[in-house]
């Protein structure tokens, strides 16, 4: 089932009554989620990703725009008629019911021609339990389980009625780091097995990158970029997206382009063919620095962190506006830890230029 959002908009009255007017929670969101894909909605808190999800589920009514499931316009349809499964951040399991009864709950709501017999219900519930691998826990109550197990039950409950679309609202953020890793792989596996179109909301870019077929990056209600995870990372459309994706974060500098030459702190660091003369922001990924004695880019070294697989050089440069510079080098290269300064040459594909006024990406040829 593909899901189409057309100019989807949600405005709320301003909570601060003195200012009045309206706040845009989601603005003009247009996007087609292909059938059977897993889409990650990514952005900082308050960017409108949960509102978008709630509009897809039907819990929130959009101010403008339309939502289609396949060819059906479901914009004004109440949630129970949409056939969506929703998984919450805090699981929202019924605390007084056992796991089995929690999973059975949605099935027992079915009426009319959809009504199931007891045996059918039990079979479906067991099937869902098997899918998320909690068959052994069916008689437990939610309070007797770990967070990861509870989240699996929640997913089983969402899947048991065979929804057309599965929606996951920050499903991993109440889990500890190890469980988070494990559960996210689990979700990926379940999604692949069932082939249900899935929307996944998160503020954790690593999570979104690792699990999604397509990432939608949002900021303050507006979509910034929609693309496959690697493309969003390699080819960000603006400074916000560049900064939001990647750990460690991208290093940002003030720079200047003159005669197709990029200058940072007065040093010519890179040829940027096709860029008119102007002031720019320069984003350089940590892996874009190559230690090179003849390199054009010089920095003072604060310290060197050895992390086994690779080495981080923490450096300083007066043009850097994102705190300290962090460069990641393969540990095969030996670095003099006591050096006071270091010179780098830059990998052009890891260097992104952004307009100083609009913060939009400026592309260049090498």
């Amino acid at each position, binding site marked *: 089932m593909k899901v189409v959002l057309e100019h989807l908009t949600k405005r709320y009255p301003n909570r601060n009554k003195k200012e009045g007017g309206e706040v845009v929670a989601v603005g003009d969101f247009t996007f087609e989620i292909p059938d059977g894909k897993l889409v990650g909605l990514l952005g900082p808190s308050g960017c409108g990703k949960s509102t978008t999800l709630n509009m897809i589920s039907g819990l929130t009514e959009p101010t403008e725009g339309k939502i289609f499931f396949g060819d059906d316009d479901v914009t004004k349809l109440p949630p129970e008629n949409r056939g969506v499964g929703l998984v919450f951040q805090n699981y929202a399991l019924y605390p007084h019911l056992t796991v089995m009864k929690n999973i059975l*709950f949605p099935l027992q709501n079915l009426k009319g021609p959809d009504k199931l017999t007891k045996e059918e219900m039990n079979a479906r519930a067991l099937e869902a339990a098997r899918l998320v691998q909690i068959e052994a826990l069916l008689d437990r109550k939610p309070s007797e389980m770990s967070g990861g197990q509870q989240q699996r039950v929640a997913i089983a*409950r969402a899947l048991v009625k065979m929804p057309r679309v599965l929606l996951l609202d920050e499903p991993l953020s109440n889990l500890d780091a190890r469980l988070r890793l494990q559960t996210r792989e689990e979700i990926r596996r379940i999604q692949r097995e069932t082939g249900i179109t899935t929307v996944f909301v998160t503020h954790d870019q690593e999570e979104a990158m690792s699990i999604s077929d397509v990432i939608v990056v949002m900021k303050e209600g507006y979509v910034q970029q929609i693309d496959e995870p690697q493309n969003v990372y390699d080819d960000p459309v603006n400074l916000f997206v560049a900064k939001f994706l990647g750990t460690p974060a991208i290093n940002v500098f003030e720079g200047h382009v003159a005669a197709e030459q990029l200058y940072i702190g007065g040093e010519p660091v890179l040829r940027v063919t096709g860029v008119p003369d102007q002031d720019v922001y320069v984003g350089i990924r940590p892996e874009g620095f190559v230690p090179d004695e003849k390199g054009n880019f010089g920095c003072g070294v604060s310290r060197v962190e050895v992390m086994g697989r690779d080495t981080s050089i923490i450096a300083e440069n007066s043009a850097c506006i994102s705190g300290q510079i962090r460069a990641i080098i393969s540990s095969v290269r030996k670095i003099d830890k006591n050096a006071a300064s270091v010179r780098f040459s830059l990998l052009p594909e890891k260097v992104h230029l952004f307009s100083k006024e609009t913060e939009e990406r400026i592309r260049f040829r090498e």
Partner: protein
Amino acid sequence: MGKSKYKGWLYLLPAIVFLAVFMVYPLVDVLVYSAEEGYSFASQTYTGTGLFNYSYVLHDPYFLQAVKNTFLIVIITVPLSTGFALLISLALTSIPKLKNLFQTIYFLPYVTNTLAVGLVFMILFKPTFYTDGMVNLLIKFFGGQAVDFIEGPYWAKMFVMCFYTIWVVLPFKILILTSALASVDQNLYNAAKIDGTSKSRTFFRITLPMISPMLFYLIITGFIGAFKAYSDEVALFGTNLNVAGMNTIVGYVYDMLYSSGGGYPSYASAAAIMLFVIVLTITCINLMVSRRSVHY
């Protein structure tokens, strides 16, 4: 170090002194009183010990009337007020606007002097020489017959009594239930909604179990409170409740203690102890039931 070890007792001293004099000693004393036969308040002497006081109270028609009244009040007002409070709280929770305003209005009776407002109820329900009173005029308007609710037939008096009691106890129950409802995780409802759960199923399978601890708390305190009904009765029917036929067990205790004849603390004690036993029994039953029905 030796001195500071007992410092805690020093802080406790005032509380302990007051509790000892006004709670522990009276507790023992009330048992003693209830066993002292023919105790005279004036001379502070008694003729013997035994269970005569209990038997006297149990054969006193005023006491039997008081027991009947009290049980009626309990049986009628506790379920009605709890159910009605639940209904109002559900309504309050489901509306988008004006919730705070309604809540504040509903709470108003809690902070008013029940004796004072009881007087207003009395004039609303009582026909006088000049007028039949508001309520009777309404009854007549709908084709009924005027009744003296304050000094008339028993059922009419019991009706006003229960109506006023419910009016007085609702604010507390509404407050507790609305906050219980508000503390149910909204996502449970969202989850249920997405699964197409019907309104009634949502209520019986989610809402009710989730607020059941608070509901039982209200039922238990409601029983205790209703068994101790007294000042609401005074508010409506005046201090001479025996004559009005609307006395309660607590009223009986006080009347025994402070009658024009100088008081009979022994009878009062016997009646009070019987009340205590009744309340204790009912509370225990309530607790057992709630243990079985509260799911988590």
